[in-house]
């Protein structure tokens, strides 16, 4: 099973309209909620008057910060503490679940209106009077530190001023350089845009005093923990969080949102189910956004192309509040990766995290690693061009070639072969004939460019000891439980969550191979805190490397116990038993027991008549094992992507004509699913490079708040991607897997942009829209003709 293109177990329900997403669930006696959101980017709330709204037909209640305070409901938290270089702790403003005296971005949640029908709730929301004193908004990432302070307690809007690496030693390395290559780049703000908008249903059972929250989460256990421990909505043991089918997440559904907290609390307060379903524009305004960095970077190089050192200075926009993983995304998920897969002896990365009056920014597919990769790959490309070296050769010269390799910042990379994947990509992309294709394009009046991106990422998030020493508030291990049922089929529980990643299939393939049980007799269960053990959810390409390993370990325990039972039944020593293809066998004999027989025996342990108990003394009945796995290291997927673009100089239209990637994800469990993950990541990365941009105007209004204004990539925006693999298995987990979910989104923006810059011969920022490209091409030809 492992390594095979097995068709997905989860497909049938989705293809026949039987998926069950949160918005599809309706509970008896349910009420409907609408959130009142701030229309202003920054304002003081003078008053909220719901008296008129409360009298409207069907209105059950309107709840505000006042009621939250009555019930002592806590605010949202930032889960990772970052220390500034001066030794002080990061500064975060309070983030109440419903705004108290101020609102800090358009879409900030002010009140919840609950009514018998959705229409009644909407009508009542219009009747709630919120009196605002509008203040000047801080919007620009670059200027945030020089603007008025949004929060009195946070001078210069600076959350943290974080430094990784050795600044003095880096300066020293730069003084010996033949050339210093400099680049100013912006990593554009994106909206994750999972196709299923967020939703939540709270349901309180006054008899059992249990509270259930159905929500669109990548991480239901963490939501339960946070909403219990920090928001104090309900004690954890009487609180159930269910994330049923979830329609994509891409990071934006990792963390509990204010709406989750408020809906759960409102259901408890009103003792009635409360249902809220986000609309798309609301989603644009209130989902966490991604990226939004402004960076100055410098690379010190020798004439022969050897990199001597790297300087990175970044301003990262955190938005109006610090969301759960907002502070780690531009620091520990970014800084260590700025080195790329190059042997750079010394470097530093300084990140200033700033607050602005925009939606909170948090993890989005790749989280920190796309920003790092964009920076280093754009810089390396520029460096190669400036010293006159072939861009592929420049990369090869500087690749890490010996493993394990301790980088100068944080990571110890266990395995890889970077020249192998670059060479394979160069072949697949037919690099040697690029000039011919370029000439052919030119003959048609088109500009053709080629761009490279050789990337590395740190996945398998994450070793608890490492992340907690860096400020993370929780460990990032994973759990699994294998429950053999007496009839021989298996329920597998994982603490990860599948919302497109195909865990039902991939994990079943692993269990099928490990235990020799047909895949159709294995069911994966996840997304319900009442069913499986506590787990840490899905993000950071962690589910297989960490969650899959927990499953392997639980399977090993099953086999160990099975051997003991088989030995008793076959009257040999456990050491004489081998387990193969679902059978416990005594080699060189015909003695054997199937794992199904063993499972049944474990549940029927008594002695009756002639039959002796199959269980050895001291062995408990039942066949169910749990494993918690805390990884020893991150995993390090890497690869080489090559993009070719063709640009029409008359219109600025940029077409990706070919896109080639060769990735090293270690071992592949299901290559069909891996390919799907690559495609999706590429579409998002190419989307960032050419189409997508979340744009706030100077007053803090999100101009791109619908699919009419925010350019989502569509089927006709892409060529057919060419895909290849190399494989150096990860040494940090028994499956040898590295993770593949984010690679496409990490690698592709610089590949595309390097190609665009190569084609037009001038710097340009993402997204390279037709207008921008047209202007850049025209500007250049004007300058050229002036010079002539």
């Amino acid at each position, binding site marked *: 099973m492992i390594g095979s293109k097995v*068709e*997905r177990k*989860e*497909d*049938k*329900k*989705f*293809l*026949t*309209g*039987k*998926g*069950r*997403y949160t*918005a*599809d669930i309706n509970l008896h006696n349910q009420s409907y909620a609408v959130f009142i959101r701030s229309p202003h980017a920054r304002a003081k709330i003078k008053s909220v008057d719901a008296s008129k709204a409360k009298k409207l037909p069907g209105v059950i209640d309107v709840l505000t910060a006042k009621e939250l305070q009555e019930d002592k409901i806590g605010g949202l938290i930032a889960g990772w503490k970052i220390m500034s270089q001066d030794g002080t702790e990061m500064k975060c403003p309070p983030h109440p679940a419903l705004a108290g005296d101020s609102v800090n971005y358009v879409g900030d949640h002010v009140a919840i209106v609950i009514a018998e029908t959705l*229409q009644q709730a909407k009508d009542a929301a219009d009747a709630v009077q919120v009196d605002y004193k509008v203040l000047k908004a801080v919007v620009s990432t670059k200027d945030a530190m020089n603007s008025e302070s949004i929060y009195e307690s946070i001078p210069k809007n600076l959350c943290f001023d974080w430094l990784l690496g050795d600044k003095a030693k880096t300066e020293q390395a730069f003084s010996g350089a033949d050339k210093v290559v400099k680049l100013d780049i912006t990593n554009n703000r994106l909206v994750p*845009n*999972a*196709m*299923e*908008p967020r939703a939540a249903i709270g349901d309180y059972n006054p008899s059992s005093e249990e509270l259930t929250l159905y929500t669109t989460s990548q991480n239901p256990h963490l939501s339960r923990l946070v909403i219990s421990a920090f928001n104090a909505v309900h004690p954890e043991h009487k609180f159930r969080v269910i994330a049923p*089918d*979830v*329609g*994509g997440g*891409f990071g934006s559904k990792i963390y509990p949102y204010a709406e989750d907290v408020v809906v759960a609390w409102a259901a408890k307060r009103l003792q009635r189910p409360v249902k809220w379903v986000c*609309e*798309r*524009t609301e989603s644009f305004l209130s989902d966490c956004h991604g990226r939004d960095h402004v960076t100055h970077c410098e690379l010190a190089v020798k004439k022969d192309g050897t990199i001597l050192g790297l300087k990175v200075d970044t301003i990262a926009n955190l938005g109006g509040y610090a969301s759960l993983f907002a502070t780690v995304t531009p620091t520990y998920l970014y800084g260590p990766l700025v080195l790329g897969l190059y042997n750079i002896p010394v470097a530093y990365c300084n990140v200033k995290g700033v607050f602005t009056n925009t939606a909170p920014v948090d993890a989005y597919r790749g989280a920190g690693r796309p920003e790092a990769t964009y920076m280093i790959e754009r810089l390396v490309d520029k460096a190669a061009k400036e010293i006159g070296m072939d861009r592929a050769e420049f990369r090869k010269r500087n690749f890490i070639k010996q493993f394990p390799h301790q980088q100068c910042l944080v990571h110890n990379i266990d395995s890889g072969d970077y020249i192998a994947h670059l060479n394979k990509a160069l072949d697949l992309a037919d690099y040697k004939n690029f000039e011919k294709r370029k000439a052919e394009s030119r003959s048609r009046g088109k500009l053709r460019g080629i761009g490279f991106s050789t990337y590395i990422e740190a996945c398998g998030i994450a070793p608890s000891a490492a992340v907690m020493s860096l400020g993370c508030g929780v460990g990032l291990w994973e759990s699994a439980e294998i429950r053999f049922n007496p009839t021989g089929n298996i329920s597998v529980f994982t603490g990860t969550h599948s*919302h*497109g*990643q*195909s865990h039902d299939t991939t994990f079943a393939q692993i269990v099928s191979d490990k235990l020799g049980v047909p895949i159709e007799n294995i069911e994966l269960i996840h997304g319900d805190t009442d069913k499986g053990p506590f787990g840490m959810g899905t993000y950071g390409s962690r589910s297989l490397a960490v969650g899959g390993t927990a499953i392997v370990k639980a399977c090993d325990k099953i086999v160990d116990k099975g051997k003991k039972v088989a030995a008793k039944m076959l009257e040999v020593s456990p050491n004489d038993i081998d387990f193969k293809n679902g059978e416990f066998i005594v080699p060189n004999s015909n003695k054997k027991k199937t794992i199904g027989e063993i499972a049944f025996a474990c549940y029927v342990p008594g002695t009756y008549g002639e039959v002796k108990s199959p269980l050895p003394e001291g062995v408990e009945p039942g066949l169910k094992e749990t494993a918690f796995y805390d990884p020893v290291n991150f995993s390090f997927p890497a690869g080489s992507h090559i993009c070719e673009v063709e640009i029409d100089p008359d219109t600025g239209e940029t077409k990706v004509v070919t896109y080639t990637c060769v990735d090293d994800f270690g071992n592949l469990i299901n290559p*069909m*699913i891996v*390919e*799907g993950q*690559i*495609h*999706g*990541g*590429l*579409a*998002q990365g190419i989307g960032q490079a050419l189409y997508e941009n979340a744009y706030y105007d100077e007053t803090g209004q999100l101009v791109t708040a*619908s*699919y*009419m204004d925010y350019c*989502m990539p*569509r*089927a*006709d925006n*892409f060529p*057919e*991607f060419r895909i290849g693999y190399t494989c150096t298995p990860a040494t940090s987990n028994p499956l040898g897997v590295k993770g593949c979910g984010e690679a*496409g989104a990490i690698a592709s923006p610089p590949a595309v942009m390097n190609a665009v810059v190569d084609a037009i011969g001038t710097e340009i920022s993402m997204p390279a829209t037709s207008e921008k490209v047209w202007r850049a091409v025209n500007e250049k030809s004007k300058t050229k003709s002036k010079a002539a």
Partner: protein
Amino acid sequence: MKTINLKVNGKIIEKTVEDNTILASFLRDQLNLTGTHIGCDTSQCGACVVHLDGKSVKSCSILAADANGSEVVTIEGLSQNGKLHVVQEAFKKHHGLQCGYCTPGMVMSAVDLLKNNKNPSDEEIRKGLEGNICRCTGYQNIVAAVKSAAGKL
């Protein structure tokens, strides 16, 4: 309020609807056909595509009242006698879906596309599905699925 009569997935339906109820909400809320999804509020995403009198339409841009007297097929009505429709089967075989949210609309659009073009090129498929947004698959496997189902309808 208006009473409407229509045929949905082969069943005769009579219901009373508000004047402003869109077809998508009617299907989801009054008929419990939750396979028709709502992914946007500007008729852009295509998650809500159904067939109305044999043609694909975005059910968010049609009032339920206007569907009076029509025949509607939703994703739930596509497979017959427990057997997947050839396009559904092709999506499964080619891994043309991940989270599944855009899938019902995508499949309904693809069926209509193939009805009108028995042998579409990749480019025609990509153009034909331009009104359906998928955030997971990067479209490549969707194109492969639709191509493989061509001519089999």
